[in-house]
């Protein structure tokens, strides 16, 4: 047909038109090289997620100890398992993005036996308590008191996160998706934790409570996963640190 358009046109099942070969090679090279460079740049821009993880290989853990529910549920282990020795303090959460407070509300200070899967990040121990009725059993007997050591009033800089993801359920990240994930956990009742940029007495991970040691108000959700400065008293309970914060001191850095 005379006068037809002679512009080369790519059709996948036909040989590549001569005029498009160089274009195809250049674009392919740029795309492959560009995406490889992009992947490298994004990968190297991320922080080290650390070693936190579910300890599925340990199997279900059954531990006994003294349960405390203020500011958030903790278990001070008196009779441990092969992997969780007596003397450890476990941060407690439920399955998924849920806490266990409603299930243990009447067991404050009691001796209980809990069953679930462990999470561990360094010195942080947590337990995802199972959903079934046998996962939480109140026992007869005296629950030994837990040593509380006040460490004074501190100003800490760091990030508010949820204790389950930080302990290993997820890779702690940054940004909006990290914030959304953490807030869903906190709304579900998972204990909030403060991850300090510098340690206090060797610890940079703190269970949070308000200045009276009660759970934090919902307003805290606006300040999750951004770097903030907070003042409050720090105490060691068992082998876990508790940061009782004065929310009026909160400053976004």
């Amino acid at each position, binding site marked *: 047909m005379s006068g037809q358009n002679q512009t080369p046109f790519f059709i996948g099942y036909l040989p590549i038109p001569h005029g498009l070969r160089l274009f195809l090679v250049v674009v392919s090279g740029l795309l492959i090289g560009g995406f490889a460079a*992009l992947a490298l740049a994004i990968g190297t*821009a991320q*922080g080290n997620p650390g070693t936190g993880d579910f300890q599925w290989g340990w199997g279900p853990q059954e531990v006994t100890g003294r349960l405390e529910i203020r500011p958030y549920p903790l278990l001070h282990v008196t009779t441990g398992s092969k992997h969780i020795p007596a003397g450890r303090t476990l941060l407690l959460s439920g399955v998924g993005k849920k806490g266990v407070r409603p299930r243990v509300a009447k067991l404050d200070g009691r001796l209980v036996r809990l069953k679930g899967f462990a999470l561990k990040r360094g010195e942080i121990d947590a337990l995802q308590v199972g959903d079934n009725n046998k996962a939480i059993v109140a026992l007869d007997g005296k629950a030994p008191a837990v040593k509380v050591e*006040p*460490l*004074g*009033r*501190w*100003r*800490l*800089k*760091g990030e508010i996160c949820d204790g389950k993801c930080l302990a290993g359920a997820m890779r702690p990240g*940054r*940004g909006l998706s990290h914030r959304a994930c953490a807030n869903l956990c906190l709304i579900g009742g998972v204990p909030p934790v403060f991850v*300090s*940029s*510098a*340690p*206090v007495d060797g610890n940079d991970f703190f269970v949070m409570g308000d200045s009276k040691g009660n759970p934090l108000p919902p307003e805290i959700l606006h300040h999750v996963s*951004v*770097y903030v400065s907070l*003042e409050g*008293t720090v105490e060691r309970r068992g082998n876990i640190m508790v940061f009782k914060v004065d929310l009026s001191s909160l400053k976004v*850095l």
Partner: protein
Amino acid sequence: MNGGSMVVWLATLWLYAGGAVAAVFLLFGIDRVDGNARGAYLFRPLLAPGVLLLWPLVLWRWWTLEAVSGTSDDAAYDRGRYQAVRAGHARVWSVLAVLVPAVLIGALLMRQPVPDSKGAAVRLDAPAPKQ
């Protein structure tokens, strides 16, 4: 209204507008601009999510296709149906080639910096002495 609430409000408004466009286009408009769609209904709900997000593009295409529907001038029909879209490819490609990396790099640069560990833990008071 803070920045986050404004974003949510604008997104909600966008989706409501998209819902209105989807309802009118998928019930009436698509029959007017695409003969192959006439009498076919089951596939239309599948298009709704896309229309919710891309409703300005749908409106523009609807407008351009209405303008050439029924014309007996093949060249004018081609210009309206096909060339109108292809003519924009180079411009859109150029804008996205700059915009996407700019957003990505900008987001990385604007991230809140990690606090320096120096001075990040300051003891203000010693614990109260035991009574």
